[in-house]
């Protein structure tokens, strides 16, 4: 009986459809077992999400609404930290810069990832597996090592500049190669491409040859086929890989520090400082939540618009 009371609609309807004889108790028993099975299936995942994802978020959200006094957090409710994050000019510039860099890096990496995955799926079928494996390997190669590799590549005495000098093309090193927004975007994209390849690749596997041939058959040229069939079918994967890259880029604080220079700095760097140097947890948390909210809003808009355009 308890099951019907808890979820009257669902259980009764299901029991009713099975409806073999008047054995009401047995039907409810089956419903209860089904609920238990469902609980066992989704329970662990729910607990995992709650413990590892939600709990820290909740703690930091509370911090962002409190105050810090003498390097101690005190539970005084206020919105000062948010007010500051949104109104202070330097924070707003920082946020805007972060969006530009994350936007640039995520578009670059998602675009290249799509081109790569598309080539694998449609042109280099035979080499799909080894190439994909190479991508996964790239994903797990050292992060810092690669930042420094980029510095040696693009620095004043780096390979590019040495080569240009050696060839007599330039006499002075090109200093714009490093320590600016463009460098931050390129280096971030370099990390994000392997991450972005996998979702797009998976999505392109779902585009069947027959669908492409059907589009050709019904009058599409190769460009029309791409826009009307391939891209819409792969859109969830394209979106996911872009969003993943965008979030990862927006949260990064190492690349901007090491190659970003003055106009290539990002909110992540400041958040780290706020936590580690200022011990101002409320402000750091508020900055982090503001960035997250802005990022999610942008992602939501892209999702909506993309879904409308590609259909």
């Amino acid at each position, binding site marked *: 009986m308890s099951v019907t009371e808890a979820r009257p609609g669902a259980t009764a309807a299901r029991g009713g459809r099975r409806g073999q004889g008047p054995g009401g108790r047995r039907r409810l028993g089956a419903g209860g077992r089904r609920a238990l099975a469902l609980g066992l299936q989704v329970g662990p995942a729910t607990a995992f999400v709650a413990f590892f994802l939600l709990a820290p978020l909740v703690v930091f959200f509370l911090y962002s609404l409190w105050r810090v006094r003498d390097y101690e957090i005190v539970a005084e409710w206020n919105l000062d930290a948010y007010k500051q994050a949104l109104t202070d000019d330097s924070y707003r510039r920082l946020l805007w810069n972060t969006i530009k860099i994350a936007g640039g890096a995520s578009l670059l990496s998602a675009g290249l990832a799509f081109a790569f995955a598309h080539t694998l799926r449609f042109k280099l079928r035979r080499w799909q597996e080894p190439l994909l494996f190479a991508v996964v390997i790239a994903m797990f190669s050292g992060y810092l090592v690669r930042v420094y590799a980029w510095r040696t590549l693009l620095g004043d005495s780096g390979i590019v500049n040495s080569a240009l000098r050696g060839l007599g093309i330039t006499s002075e090193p090109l200093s714009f190669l490093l320590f600016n927004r463009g460098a931050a975007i390129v280096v971030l994209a370099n990390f994000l491409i392997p991450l972005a390849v996998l979702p797009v690749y998976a999505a392109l596997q779902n585009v*069947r040859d*027959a*669908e492409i*041939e*059907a*589009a*050709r*058959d*019904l*009058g*599409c*040229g190769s460009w*029309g086929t791409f826009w*009307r*069939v391939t891209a*819409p*079918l792969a859109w969830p994967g394209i979106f996911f890989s872009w969003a993943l890259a965008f979030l990862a880029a927006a949260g990064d604080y190492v690349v901007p520090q090491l190659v970003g220079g003055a106009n290539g700095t990002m909110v992540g760097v400041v958040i780290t400082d706020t936590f580690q140097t200022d011990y101002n947890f409320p402000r750091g948390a508020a900055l982090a939540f503001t960035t997250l909210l802005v990022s999610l809003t942008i992602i939501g808009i892209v999702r909506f618009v993309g879904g409308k355009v590609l*259909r």
Partner: protein
Amino acid sequence: MGPHSGRVNTVVEERETAAGSIPAAAGAPAIAIDDVRKSFGSYSALAGCSLHVERGQFISLLGPSGCGKTTLLRIIGGFETQDAGTVAINGETVDALPPNKRNVNTVFQSYALFPHKSVFDNIAFPLAIARVPKRERAERVREMLELVRLSGVEERKATQLSGGQSQRVALARALVGRPEVLLLDEPLAALDLKLRKTMQLELRRIQEQLGTTFVFVTHDQEEALTMSDRIVLMNGGRIVQGGSPREVYDQPANVFVSDFVGEANLLDGVVDGHVGALATVTTEAGVLHVAPGATTPAAGPAIVSIRPERIALQRPGQAAGEAENGLPGTVERIVFLGNLVRAHVRVAEEVVLTAELSRAEADGIAEGERVLACFGAAATRVLPPDGAPA
């Protein structure tokens, strides 16, 4: 039927114009395929196929799995490029044209509906590509849905349809652009038997209603017999015979056709003489009197084909019928098929004939009984032996 002429391509009736040189005139065949060849690596999937399809015909490409039917259809549709030979549609050579520039549409075996679009948008797809005005699109989609007898599902996603419904949507989508020719690659193979029978008749009705040329690929001989104006038989990458369902059934050009279309009793023998207008063939089961036809070798090894329904069984002592042949044998097995009865009669050590009898004819015949398997000279078809140059 010219089975003695070198390579047996399909019989091109009525018009003998060379493909490719035909002007895009009203009289040009819907499809003219001329000596098309295709290999995959070293495997020759099509070894020289020629075929003319008249406008407005329902033609079936019939053959066992792997004989090259799909490959030929894909070459017509433009999805595969032939190694040699030409394809002309409506008198215009299309070898250099991509699929979207050919006035043919395809119903794919897997239907290939666009899963991200509604049924309406799937059917309207070719119209949207052709920039047909929105109002006309709606009108034509509605017409198509009426034609394929499907309604009330316009707003559903293509993934939410049953097999039969998907089939109808795929058909509507392929026809809405009013193609000259519709290509269908085993479109009914995934349906259950009952639905398949219904769709066979539906397809034929739609084809007659529109007058569009249909090229229908199947490996099911019964399906081909049911639906087609003309059946083209393929085997091993070649076209082996073409003709009306009656022709290919009654006058098979070779053993393959005789065996593949319908059932046949095949007896090895040697053509060795004449009795009046009839030829004699000595087989293991005795000397047969046969009516010589175009396929009958003048002398030497041959195979005699007899359809099971042309054999009657007589019990000894019964008044002799008019049939020229009567082979004594023993009924080994009787199989009850409901409307028919099939009897297996051993007429020689190694030879068992299958006879198909009506219930009345079979009345009183029991397993183990001695009978005479009778058939007329005209009921036989003498074919060149397998492997011999046709």
